[in-house]
């Protein structure tokens, strides 16, 4: 199990890249179905290689839950080259402009990505 801050745990190996977390996070932000504002995003830009996981934007950090482990980067540094020589991920397109995770404050179910993950890849600590 991969463990990250803020009470949300992401197990990238359980993830199936279905994007339910991204969609419901967008709903939380926009009160509509939209993907532009989500602070949690399955990264899919390397789907051709079957290499995928989950990005989560926190207040100061970008959490990159990869199959091989979780990496936490300070916002800003996340745009630097990663160990593999690639950018953090293209699917993080406007990630730095998005609101950070607020654990779905004021939502009656609590963190919606946790509720809507069909395979329990995202859970609460």
């Amino acid at each position, binding site marked *: 199990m991969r463990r990250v801050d803020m009470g949300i745990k992401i197990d990238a190996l359980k993830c199936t890249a*279905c994007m339910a977390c991204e969609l419901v996070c967008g709903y939380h932000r926009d009160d509509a179905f*939209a993907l*532009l504002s989500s602070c949690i995003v399955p990264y*899919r830009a390397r789907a051709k290689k079957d290499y995928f996981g989950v990005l989560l934007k926190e207040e100061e950090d970008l959490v990159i839950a990869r199959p091989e482990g979780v990496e936490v980067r300070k916002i800003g540094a996340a745009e630097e080259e990663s160990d593999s020589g690639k950018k953090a991920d293209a699917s993080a397109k406007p990630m730095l402009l998005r609101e950070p995770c607020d654990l779905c404050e004021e939502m009656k179910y609590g963190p919606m990505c946790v509720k809507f993950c069909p*395979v329990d890849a995202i859970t609460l600590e």
Partner: protein
Amino acid sequence: MEYLSTGKILIVDLETREVTEEELADDLVAGRIGGAGITKHLYEQHEERDPVVLGTGLLTGTLYPGSALGVVTAKSPVTGNLSHSPFTLDAAVELKYAGFDYVVIKGVSEKPAFLWIHDGIADISDAADVWGKDVWETTNAWRKTLGDDLIQTLLIGPAGESGSDFAQICVNYWASGDRFGLGKRFGQKRLKGIGLRGMGLFEIADAEGFVDRCLELLTQLKSGAASGKKGIGEIYAALGMPEVRDWLNSLVHRHSACFNTPFATNTYVYLDEDPKRLTEPETDDPGFKITELFGLLGLKKIGLSAEAACRLLKACARYGIDGAAVAELSEKADLKESGEIERSFASLTGSVTLPGKGIFSPWCPVGPIFSDFGLSRDASETEAWWERRQAVAYIFGIHPLFAVMSPELTEESMLEAVRLGTEMEIGRETLDGVIADLAG
């Protein structure tokens, strides 16, 4: 249409290169609901121009479980009839978020063409540089040119360009659910393919009610018959063929799902990397994503190893040809070796077995998976159930495979979701009418 919809239909005339938009009228939705109900209507409206119509359902791209489906409606070169094939992964969702619920493509382009739909805009551009390229090369080229690896593509390879009856409209790099040869229609129109990307937004009439209902359904599904299972191997096992799962197992890397679909119907095999590898492979194409059942099954029946079968399916996807048709016709022609089968792609002819009435693609097995849906073992009852289940999935925008494994997704729950999401009173009588029209 104000809710669960972009409210727009895109009309593309490849002959004149004119692109126009029409409003998706409430009356049309009230009478035809959506998905295949409306793609058929649009096909008939433009029939004299031999259109290919793409569409999504009201539930496509929403939180309703399994909301991944888009439909391609056109006359099948295989059956000669108006047919509906699915496109899933993330492509249907990308079409809707790119700003259009429906796309009517009519006429024939003078030169190879690429249709680029993005953020409410559609452009037709020249595709001469990729005409003759395979599906992988073309998707790579378009993503590189447009600078976005998340662009979803619906496209043909050499099979569609050369007029094969078994040409598929592929999705990105992979086989689609097109068993009706609709890729040939793209080729006849000199349409190499479509790129999709968008960041749209759909309003929900009763947002809280809609989301509550989706969560209730997901909760039920998570304790249902498919819960805890993943991948194509489990589907084979549920269909009584656990040996296919076991035969494939040593190559399996990971399983992935189509958009918001709780069951991961896609299985990726590593062919040039260790399947246990977790870090990012250095090679660009370490393997192949298996997105359909029958090609692999047919190649196993011929006697190929799992690795040889997967490599051949990869070749099929690159060429843009239906792997299941390749397997069946190769068996009939007594071809047993990968190389000779691949060399036969260009000359592949014959008739293939297509269960069902030829309306909905039998990419989805004709029968329930994991759960029995309360059906008897009577074949005609199962076939009638399947035709209706597929119709419902194609109307609302639900993944067809997930629809036959999830009795929790009742017709009433879909109608209720539409009522909550749109405030439109669409009832069972309307649904029955649309299903009857699709069957007729």
